[in-house]
């Protein structure tokens, strides 16, 4: 009996991924010109429209945007968990260590998920199955992906719970999700994402449902684990404060387009896109007394029938006639930045 036991600590011995030619010198994750469409009754909605970015080890990329801007769809496309149909990946590449995932066979892709790229979702309560214990759900990845037996898998589950700072992990492993508090559930989600030692973590609004003091705990944990494991982290959020705290670089999205890309200091100090500038001016800050908030007039456009030209022009204070007809490309901005605005120089100068 003992001799048939696979050595789970040695990693995935029979992983189908061993035949895939991952190039260790290639960037960790590259997204190029990703486009996702949704086919709806009203027409085709371009939820993601040519988004590109790259991520290296130990780096945190913040994807910032409002609801409906395509940030979660981008994440789901990278993970390969979009519902198709209605969604359709209309173009682009997602390369992990130089290998395009979008053209990869679904059976192989399944092993990339969790082993290489894992995801943390917003709502831990609905992401966990209420009828199985937390330990069983955590251990599932060890059983399925690594062929561990129940006992080993449970042992590993306890270790993972310990790692994410759940007190008395040994006793909590047989508890059900409803027996955990919101912050603890999010820790379980993090444990689950990290269980197979991925290189990339995508966190989709990981702390939005949590209280501020618990949010601080969870973000701290995520940052510590990222440092320790040299993870590439994609943090998807609408909270400009959280991004400023943890991200190294930022990609701001609006109506399916990446409108500004820069490192975090540059973005907050001198935004190069009117949307980013307006967002920063429209949020009340805890460290400033109440002044009149600058309002972004109007609403984000419908994705089915977007306005011609720049998608932001109906709400933009810098808009001119040119913006109504000519969609701006992503202009390079000094300092390795990019901005999708014809008048980025003017925006930065103001």
């Amino acid at each position, binding site marked *: 009996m003992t001799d048939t036991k696979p050595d789970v600590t040695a990693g995935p011995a029979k992983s189908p991924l061993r035949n895939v030619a991952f190039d260790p010198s290639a960037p960790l994750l590259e997204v190029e010109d990703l486009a996702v469409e949704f086919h709806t009754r009203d027409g085709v909605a371009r939820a993601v429209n040519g988004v590109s970015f790259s991520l290296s080890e130990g780096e945190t990329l913040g994807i910032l945007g409002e609801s409906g801007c395509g940030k979660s769809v981008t994440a789901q496309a990278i993970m390969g968990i979009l519902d198709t149909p209605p969604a359709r990946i209309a173009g682009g590449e997602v390369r992990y260590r130089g290998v395009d995932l979008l053209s990869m066979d679904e059976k192989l892709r399944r092993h990339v998920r969790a082993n290489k790229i894992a995801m943390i979702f917003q709502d831990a309560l609905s992401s966990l199955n209420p009828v199985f214990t937390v330990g069983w759900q955590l251990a599932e990845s060890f059983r399925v992906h690594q062929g561990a037996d129940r006992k080993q898998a449970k042992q590993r589950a306890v270790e993972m719970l310990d790692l994410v700072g759940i007190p008395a992990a040994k006793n909590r492993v047989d508890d059900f999700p409803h027996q955990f508090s919101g*912050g603890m559930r999010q820790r379980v989600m993090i444990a689950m994402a990290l269980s197979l030692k991925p290189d990339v973590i995508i966190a989709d609004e990981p702390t939005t449902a949590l209280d501020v003091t618990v949010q601080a705990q969870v973000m701290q944990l995520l940052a510590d684990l990222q440092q320790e494991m040299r993870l590439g982290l994609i943090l998807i959020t609408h909270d400009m*404060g959280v*991004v400023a705290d943890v991200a190294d670089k930022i990609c701001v999205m609006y109506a399916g387009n990446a409108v500004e890309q820069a490192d975090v200091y540059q973005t907050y100090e001198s935004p190069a896109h009117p949307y980013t500038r307006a967002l920063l001016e429209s949020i009340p800050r805890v*460290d400033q007394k109440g002044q009149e908030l600058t309002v972004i007039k109007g609403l984000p456009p419908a994705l089915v029938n977007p306005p011609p030209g720049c998608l932001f022009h109906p709400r933009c204070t810098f808009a001119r006639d040119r913006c109504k007809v000519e969609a701006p490309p992503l202009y390079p901005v000094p300092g390795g930045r990019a901005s999708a605005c014809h008048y980025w120089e003017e925006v930065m100068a103001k």
Partner: protein
Amino acid sequence: MTTDTTRAQEPLPVDDDDVVLTVRDVKKYFPLTQGIVFKRTIGHVKAVDGVSFQLHKGETLGIVGESGCGKSTLGRLLMGLEAPTEGSIRLLGHEMAGLKPSQMRALRRDIQIVLQDPYSSLDPRMTVGDIVGEPFDIHPQALEGRERRKVVQELLDVVGLNPDHVNRYPHQFSGGQRQRIGIARALSLKPKVIVCDEPVSALDVSVQAQVVNLFERLQDEFGLSYVFIAHDLSVVRHISDRVMVMYLGKTMEIGNEDQIYGEPTHPYTQALLSAVPVPDPRMKGRRDHIVLEGDVPSPANPPSGCRFRTRCWKAEDICAQEEPLLQIREKADHPSACHFAQPREIIRAIDEPEGQDA
């Protein structure tokens, strides 16, 4: 000052003209029962446990706290949607407890609520005109002889919606517009006080500013008083004149905006403020970070003495034995419920905004 160590805090002048709402030592306990046929009460969830404050005309009182601290229950108590277990709520000099339903109905014209979720707080089968005009079905005298449709259209105009949209349904509006519908409904009876229960939490950042500004404009225009319940400390700072911090059904600290944000004296307020991420990467690592351990204890079984002591880094033996009263302490200028209250600067802006108005 007298050293009255019983319940009494500062004596509350009740009949001040300026005061619209007086809440005194209000408690709300929800019974916990066991058994199906023969229900036995096995305990109480002390959702609100002795809260007092006054609200003045044209003032905004922000109530902050984490989920489960009792701030929404307090809002429901103010609205008369729940009856307090103990304590008194006086609206415009009228005691709300023990009123006959007809009297209650009349009094409710003066206090209205804006709810958090603009998606579930509007009936999807009613038109906007019916939603905003529904209060007039209950209080026809509030129309004062005017035509209902016209009044509704005026209200829509006031909150920045197109008056021609009276016949549309809620699903035809965006989140921010729906919240405006909710605000128009609350305004329809010309109340003196509006309870805002997390009114902007469900909105996107770019829309949030529109609604926050609308609240401020309406306050100036109609002389409204707000009780603004929210968990977002930045929004509360922006809109409030005074702020009350709650934890497990108790008031931890109350003071004006400068006192609470500039020199918080209660450890919980300090921890709460330090946990709010500031949208400025230059503050990374330069701020005082207090990361609390653990979670909020169950309100059914709160800790003895000070309720915050299980997560507090200052806690000593006295905190477990003696409950700290909400009173002005030696080193501070505003009431704080901590034995060791001491001001501590948590938030320091690198570039101080110039021209601070008093």
